[in-house]
């Protein structure tokens, strides 16, 4: 009996969470997929009706805006946050005396909720209250910075706020990566008289490849599920210029009583996540098999 118990203990301990995940994650993914093929409006209905919701989705100019915003926002956010985070990490890695304090300062925005970040940046970027008004108050009457209220530029304000929030976190990731590189190799390179920038580009950064991948995965899922930042910063506006798929889905499901549309947009979001995560998982699993 004890032996049986010992043998099966791991399975028994894991079983509840396995079942919960099976139902509440994969079960509901399946449910959403089903609903996305129906004509559900206010309440879910289950009679299948082909691809009608996807047709409607791709005909909708608002979804076009939301979907292309996802790529603009996701690309700029991930790339800039990673570059900024890497630069900050390298600078912090130069044996600075107050490293602990500075690291905390840079990491601190991560402790704020996106709602707080969004609201603070809304005030900073508001032309009548924030930066523009302040600089004009200094005497530069022509200074204009109205991205927040300009439909063509508003999405970039979301990028700015998101980078401010996350680059400190990326920095911390990279800093840990920098520290994990074998010091012996670095010292050997220095003995050989190789310049510091070469040490970074040829030794340290290539050695950190897995960290880049982790940072990319973390940032890309932050980008895809971005919701609260947009709601707090722009409310999706001006017009619907800063809509993202997540806010589109919310509007359809909860304001408009159009559950079928919401479900189909959620499925597209999931497909985007899969195109990023599946190759990653595949490469991870394959290296382990090797």
């Amino acid at each position, binding site marked *: 009996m004890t032996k049986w118990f010992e043998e099966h203990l791991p399975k028994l301990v894991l079983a509840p969470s396995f079942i919960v995940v099976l139902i509440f994650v994969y079960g509901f993914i399946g449910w959403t997929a089903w609903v996305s093929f129906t004509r559900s*409006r*206010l*309440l879910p209905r289950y009679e299948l009706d082909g691809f009608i919701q996807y047709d*409607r989705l791709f*005909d*909708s*100019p*608002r979804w076009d805006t939301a979907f292309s915003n996802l790529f603009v926002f996701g690309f700029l956010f991930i790339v800039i946050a990673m570059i900024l985070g890497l630069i900050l990490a390298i600078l912090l890695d130069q044996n600075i005396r107050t490293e602990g304090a500075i690291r905390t300062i840079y990491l601190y925005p991560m402790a704020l909720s996106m709602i707080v970040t969004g609201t603070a940046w*809304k005030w900073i970027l*508001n*032309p*009548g209250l924030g930066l523009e008004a302040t600089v004009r108050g200094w005497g530069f009457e022509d200074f204009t910075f*109205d991205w*927040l*209220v300009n*439909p063509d530029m508003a999405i970039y304000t979301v990028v700015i706020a998101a980078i401010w929030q996350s680059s400190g976190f990326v920095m911390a990731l990279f800093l840990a990566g920098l520290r994990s590189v074998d010091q012996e190799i670095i010292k050997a390179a220095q003995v050989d008289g190789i310049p510091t920038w070469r040490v970074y580009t040829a030794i340290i950064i290539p050695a950190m490849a897995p960290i880049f991948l982790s940072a990319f995965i973390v940032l890309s899922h932050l980008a895809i599920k971005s919701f609260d930042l947009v709601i707090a910063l*722009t*409310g*999706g*506006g*001006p*017009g*619907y*210029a800063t809509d993202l798929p997540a806010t589109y889905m919310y*509007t359809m499901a*909860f*304001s*408009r*009583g*159009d559950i079928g*549309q919401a479900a189909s947009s959620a499925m597209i979001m999931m497909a985007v996540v899969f195109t990023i995560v599946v190759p990653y998982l595949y490469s991870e699993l394959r290296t382990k098999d090797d």
Partner: protein
Amino acid sequence: MTIKLLGAVSGMAIIASSAAFADGHAAPEAEVLHYWTSGGEARSVAVLQEEFAANGGTWTDMPVAGGGGDAAGTALRARVLAGNAPTAAQIKGPAIQEWYEEGVLADISEVAEANNWSGILPEAIAGHMQCDGTWCAAPVNVHRVDWIWANAEVLEANGIEMPTTWDEFNAAAETLQAAGVIPLAHGGQAWQDATVFEAVALGILGADGFRKAFVELDMDTIKSDDMIAVFDQMRTMRGYVDDNFSGRDWNLATAMVMNGEAAFQIMGDWAKGEFMAAGKVPGEDFLCLSTPGDGFLYNVDSFAMFAVDGDDKQAGQALLAELVVGESFQEVFNLNKGSIPVRTDVALDNFDSCATLSADDMAASNEGGSLLPSYAHGMALRGAQAGAITDTVTAHFNSDMSSEDAVQMLADAIANSL
């Protein structure tokens, strides 16, 4: 003797049983889901709770704040799907029909007929409360949406009268702009853009055109030249708004009119509550007039009644329906809320001049067939269609899209939402 005794006993039994029956009905219960949670609204709903309690009922309050009813809608959906619907829920307009089609609403025709609702409610509004000929919801109030509010002092200083045509409005706005006053206080949120748009549409399309376009979704009207004119006027009005309007809340826009920063605001009569709360007097400090054009756009709050089990709950539902449409509640509630009574036979002695104007216009437009549901506030169309129109309106207002493109986009969006 025996027979007498038997009669007496059975008589007592009848009395006893009818007492029990009365007891059963003496404890009406109602669980009411609503989203009246802000200061003035919460006070208004407290009036109903008191009246309900005074009639021997037990009120279970279920306020759900947030999102202009979105959060309440989500809570309601969860409750209904779980088979545990509240007695009544604050739902309005075509959403009542949508819930009816899901087969979850109750029939309160008995109360409605006993209280002659069809005689005292304007016909257009009564239509919203009926599902397939039976009564399924009780109306609470009437907000008028197509109001234009103005700062009396600013208008006087610039020698401007309240505009009665859109050309007059544009001329007044030019004068104001030249004088350094923001002509139109506006908040760049989609629903506010839609509110201005429907006021303009009512003025330019007329009552019949408005009905065809935004109630019947008649494609010829939607693609007509008049609709292009509507978008042209929206483009003109975009020029009368200050640069900093994006995302501004409606009450902040009202405050701009109040303190003379801006001259006009186009907003429903909930804006009056802001003026009143600041101690302003209608006709002296601020002026109210319907937006240019004939017609009356209404936004009616109502309680939809859900099918519930149990005599106590059904009694509560009947009592609630009776009280909500009752004269005393209609008067007290609407005085608090800033709207007007939905029944046409309530004395308006205690109401202010804007409210009496609103009530007169409602009666007149009811006669003339120009009493119309507000599309921007979810009275005319279902969520998906209304949302599609609002998307186009807000996209046009917040960009440099041409009116022709906007009309084409509007037609496509509506077709796509059906």
